[in-house]
């Protein structure tokens, strides 16, 4: 830990915990910018929501570049006055926020830098702060691999929501996925906060919340209701019974969740009770909404590996965005 990194921990943790902080992972893809638009929508007009844009550059592996450090190539690019990809992507994100009116020209600007072993660029960030205390942060991070970098970043900032683009094709399923999981999947499994996996994310068609009546799912419904009310997205509820006998339980689960939401002063647009395979039913119904939101599966460790959680299967196979609420 370098001194400056300690400073950064202090710097990000001192703000009070009333703030809702969103980490948007930017990789230059359209998907990641759609995720950013969604974050902007949540933050729009709310002073207690911060947006952090993060680009993670994996550290260089000397063998891959034949023993010549990539820094030599990068230094050469910079000398020609060209920008490195990460900076380019983050700037594009910043310009997008400016366009949407979520980042004013008069905001305070401060730059931070901390050295990272083995690269001459290190971690860099620019913090824009409005008078109201609202922040937008651009962060260029170096890490062993992208997933580790994002999880590390969470430890620095303790974000409430991570938004990450889904891979163009979810190619690695089953055992292949176990040996070499996609970044989005790793984040969805390991991040200690809510994770939104963005896939053709369009704003405004509402959230479809899945509930199974457990305490965890009710908690998730509450949290998501908070996010949905920030972006004025309509809310619908769904519960899936595995067979006809348990249909009543499912109905009860939906009714419970509905009551909780009404108590919070949030209205519910539609409710669905289905019978069948949870994964298939949720994916099919979810296609009509902006995103599917669900609680983290309560399975863990070996059981999750053997049985696989409904949430993970929905994330992999859904046609649109999925949010795991923690």
């Amino acid at each position, binding site marked *: 830990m370098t001194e400056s990194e300690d400073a950064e921990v202090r710097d990000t943790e001192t703000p*009070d*915990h*009333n703030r*809702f902080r969103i980490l948007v992972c930017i990789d*230059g893809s359209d998907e990641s910018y759609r995720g950013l638009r969604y974050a902007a929508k949540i933050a729009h007009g709310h002073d*207690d929501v911060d947006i952090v844009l993060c680009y993670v550059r994996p550290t260089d*592996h*000397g*063998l*891959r*570049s*034949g*023993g*010549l*450090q*990539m*820094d*030599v*190539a*990068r230094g*050469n*690019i910079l*000398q*020609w006055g*060209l920008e*490195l*990809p*990460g900076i*380019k*992507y983050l700037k594009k994100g910043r310009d997008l926020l400016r366009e949407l009116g979520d980042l004013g020209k008069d905001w305070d600007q401060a730059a931070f830098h901390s050295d990272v072993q083995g690269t*001459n660029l290190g971690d860099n960030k620019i913090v824009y702060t409005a008078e109201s205390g609202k922040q937008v942060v651009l962060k260029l991070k170096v890490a062993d691999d992208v997933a*580790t970098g994002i*999880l590390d970043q969470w*430890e620095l900032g*303790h974000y*409430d929501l991570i938004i990450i683009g889904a891979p163009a094709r979810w190619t690695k399923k089953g055992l292949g996925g176990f*040996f070499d999981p996609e970044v989005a999947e790793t984040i969805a499994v*390991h991040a*200690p*906060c809510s994770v939104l996996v963005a896939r053709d994310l369009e704003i405004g068609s509402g959230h479809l919340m899945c509930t199974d009546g457990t305490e965890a799912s009710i*908690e998730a419904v*509450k*949290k998501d209701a*908070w996010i949905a009310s920030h972006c004025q997205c309509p809310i619908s509820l769904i519960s899936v019974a595995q067979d006809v006998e348990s249909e009543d339980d499912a109905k009860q689960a939906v009714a419970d969740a509905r009551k909780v939401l009404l108590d*919070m002063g949030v209205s519910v647009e539609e409710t669905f009770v289905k019978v069948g395979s949870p994964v298939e039913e949720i994916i099919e119904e979810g296609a009509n909404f902006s995103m599917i939101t669900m609680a983290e599966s309560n399975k863990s*460790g070996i059981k999750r590996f053997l049985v696989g959680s409904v949430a993970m299967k929905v994330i992999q196979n859904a046609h649109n965005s999925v949010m795991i609420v*923690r």
Partner: protein
Amino acid sequence: MAEAPRRPKSPYRALKARRLARPMRVLRRTGSYLYFLEKRWFFIALAVGAGMLSMPVPEGLTQAGMIILAMSVVATILFVTEPVPLPTVALLIIIGQVMLMGIDSKTVAQSLMSDSVLFIMGSLMLAVAVVKQKLDARIAWLLVRMTGTKTVWIAFGISLASGLLASFVGEHTVAAMMLPVGLTLIHLTSDDPKKVRNLAAVLLFSISYGCSVAGIGTPSGGARNAIMIGYWKEFFYDPTSPDTFKYLVDYVKWMAYAYPMFLLQIPFVTLILLTTFRPEYKDLSRAVVKLRAQVEAQGAMKPGDWVAILIFFLVLLGWIFWSANYGMGTIAILGAAAFLVAGLVKWSDVNSGVNWGVVLLYAAAISLGVQMKDTGAAAWVAQNFLDVLVPFGMDTGVGLWAAVSLLTTGVTNTMSNGAAVAVLGPIVLKLAVVAEESPIILGFVTSVSSAFAYLTVVGTPACTIVYASGYLKTTDFLKVGWKMVIMSTIIMLVVASVYWPLLSP
């Protein structure tokens, strides 16, 4: 959390206070799990190694051979999956040789350094020295003067220029030098990456594939060439028998074999790229004019630039005329020393620009390869591999070359090409002995095929460096790579059956 409420209460706040303790708990619980998840391949590799050691020794293999074989398998898994920093593998190989094989530590230490390793080290130092000379602007200027403004000719020019340079100074050096040139051309054509996607692919792949096909041209083109030269000498050279002198391959002899093959491939590279990605702009006049202005602003060549070119030219002459007497490694470090003495490069730049772990890694891999030969493990694997090939009729001639080439291409796409040659070299050379083929030709087939890593980003240094520009997708490499593999394999097989036999009696 007893904080003074400074803000209006949000409904989220109550929820949040309750869940604050939770992330910490989750983190603690998953902390060790994450470590094992990240390093899982390391433990899988160790388990495979332990499994192999506890198996009964197969017929025809000695106990020592089995240990070396297990170490090679573990090292290969670690090369491919990289759960630990790669130089760690080198350290583990050294430890294994002393502790598992019971070889004297002094012997192991001595086996680490050879002329090939010195050559790899010296070439890397030269590479940094050359990149630091900022000659890229001059090259760009020369390039656009010769090619004009048509996209086709610029792409061909970039491939040829990258190739000619890369064949002597190494592909990573040239990729690092040419990348800004390509990026500037793309950037000056259009600011919007979407409008120049195909153009970017053509120009950037012209750099990386131009470098890749050229890396085989001379021994200084890539570490793998030096490794193969080292293996030939270790395996077959016997100072007392004049018959074995043909296994001493020097700079000129290597070029005689491989250089024509590189030149043959260049036109096909441009052809394949232009047909796969149809560039949006057929003419780059605007970009070229701006590039010229940008380069001319830098002024005339300075005396230092000329000295740098002179030193490199002398190193090249040294490799061609004196490497037989003094060794290629000696000439390479002489060149590096000359750059430092002339003050053209700072030691701090050399120190941070060379990845010293790679030198260590190749040293350990070559040492392991020589052990493969000494213990008979290489011969045993070669014999078994040949037995597999017999039913397909691929155990002699072109069939065997194709099989070796296929094997090498497969391995090299998953790891660095130097590591691929270091791992496969001993087996292939023993294969040549068992199948009564020329070890020189099969050795060339292996080291040339190891350049066919067009399919992945990590395959060749040039691909990795070009990918760092952010303009290319990993799928682009697959899209065009398979055509390149087929083209290169065919050209190599033709050259191997028509041209190489003329050279080796």
